[in-house]
Every structure is written in structure tokens, then in C-alpha cells.
């Protein structure tokens, strides 16, 4: 019971901190706080440390593959040079 109350309080505090950080324009801090909230839920509510060891393996595996998806999936977008086509395209039809 006390554990749940503690976790709930921590989450509420983190949420408040998130709002403050967002107002201050600290994007990175917001991200860190969001990850902390996730950790509180995983450790406090889902009690992953008391789950069978297999569950921890599965959770870490999911996290690992998520990292692959995000890292390699964004690699192209972040290293690409794009030449956008504007309205003044050279093949603008001759009339109108």
C-alpha cells in the first residue's frame, strides 16, 4: 500500500516537474522526466524485478529492438540532403 502511494506521489511530482520544464523550454529535461516516469511505472506498478527472470529478458529485448528501430530508422532522415521542389518548378507549364 505504501509502495503504491509513494509511486503515485512520485509520478505526480514528476508530472508537475515536466510541466515546469516545458514552460521553461527545457526539452531535454522533459524527456528525462518522462523516462523517469516510465521507470517508476515499470519498477513500482509492474514490479518487473519481482517478475520471473524471463520477463526481464523479454523486456530488455523489446527495449533493445526498439532502440534499433529508432536509431537505424532515423539514420536516413538525419543524414539526407533533400532538394525540395518549389512552386517555381522548371517544368511549369507554359500557359497560365
Amino acid at each position, binding site marked *: 500500500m505504501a509502495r503504491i502511494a509513494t509511486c503515485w506521489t512520485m509520478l505526480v511530482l514528476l508530472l508537475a516537474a515536466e510541466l515546469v520544464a516545458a514552460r521553461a523550454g527545457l526539452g531535454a529535461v522533459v524527456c528525462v522526466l518522462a523516462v523517469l516516469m516510465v521507470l517508476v511505472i515499470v519498477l513500482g506498478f509492474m514490479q518487473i524485478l519481482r517478475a520471473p527472470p524471463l520477463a526481464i529478458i523479454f523486456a530488455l529485448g523489446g527495449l533493445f529492438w526498439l532502440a534499433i528501430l529508432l536509431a537505424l*530508422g532515423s539514420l536516413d532522415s538525419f543524414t539526407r540532403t533533400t532538394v525540395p521542389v518549389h512552386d517555381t518548378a522548371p517544368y511549369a507549364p507554359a500557359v497560365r
Partner: protein
Amino acid sequence: MPDSPVLDHHSPYETPLHRDESAIAGMWLFLASEALLFGGLFLVCLIYSHTRSAGWAEGVRHTNLVIGGVNTMILITSGAVYTMAVEAGKRGDNRRVVRAGLGAAALGVAFLVLKGVEWALEFREHLFPGPDFALHGPDAGAAELFYSFYFLATFLHGMHMVVGIGLILWICRKARHGIFGPAWNTPVDIVGLYWSFVDLVWMLLFPLLYLLGRA
């Protein structure tokens, strides 16, 4: 998922503990799978919020922070309340499982109602991407991308909420018959994992949809 405290003779397990551990591990594996489902959305967000940051932030600034914040509080509380049901299940206190479960489900419904109100407001403000999209200017395209993401992400999360509420009600019905006890409460546990996961996803979506880029 096991549906009774005893093993029937076709069960592949040796002991009930063996069965319950497998069920919990299986649920975690399913949640890993779910994480990658939302992972696709996070990738979309990660890319556009950097490559099209100006318009994306403009979209973020038009979301309803009050409703979003209240909803986050509701979900935090709902998660905490359902975790009480899990604790009660471990003690075999079926009445508390029902009460906490119904409380968590009610909070979940409140979340969905508020979300619906928020959507209605956004539709009225023409924030749904399309020909009569409300925002104009050079970055309007990226703002529309943001709203495509916003509506799909909240829809998908909402669907998970609906499934979660359904599962909680199913647990409550079972608990009313008093079938959970210290020896067997795996379904309560498993639904708790799912409900916390839905919670967890929102804790990530909330900053992405409402906070990052607002200032």
C-alpha cells in the same frame, strides 16, 4: 491464460506455479511486442519533430494542455488504483479487487470521455488535417503532419484503453465470484501489467503531444 486455480490433465504444465510464471513471462513478451507497435509511431515523431521542427512545434502549441494534463493525472491515479487491486488479489481479498478494479475502470472511462471532449473541440477548431485545416503559413504542412500523428496516436492509445477497461471488467466479474486467492491470482496480475503498460505509453505520449516545443 489460465482460467482456474487447478491444472486440468491436458495442461502442459507440471505445477500451477510453473503455469503462472509462464503466463506472466508471456504477457511481458506480448508487451515487448506492443512496445514496438508504438515504436513505429515514436519513430515518425522522432523524425518529423527534428526535420520539420517549426511546424511540428506549432502543432504542439495548439493542443489542449489542460485536458491533457488532467488526463495524465487520471491515468496515473487509475494505474495506482488498479495496482491496489493486484495487491488485494495477492491477499485473496476479492471484494477489494472488485472495488479497486471498478475504480480504475471508472477513471479509465473518465479519461476516454475527456479525450472525446478534446477531440470534439479540435474538430470544431478545424485541427483535423484536411482541406479546411485551421493553421496556415509556411509550416502548415508540418502542423498537419503533427495532427495526423496526434489523432492516430491518441486513437491507438484510446483503443488500448478500451481493451484494458474491458479486461478489468472481466476481472471484476471473476472476482465477484470470489475465485482469486493467495494461491492463484495470475489474471489480476496480467491485466495489471497491461493496464500499467497503457499508462506507461501515455507517460511518453503526453510530453510528445503536449509539451515538447510548447515554450
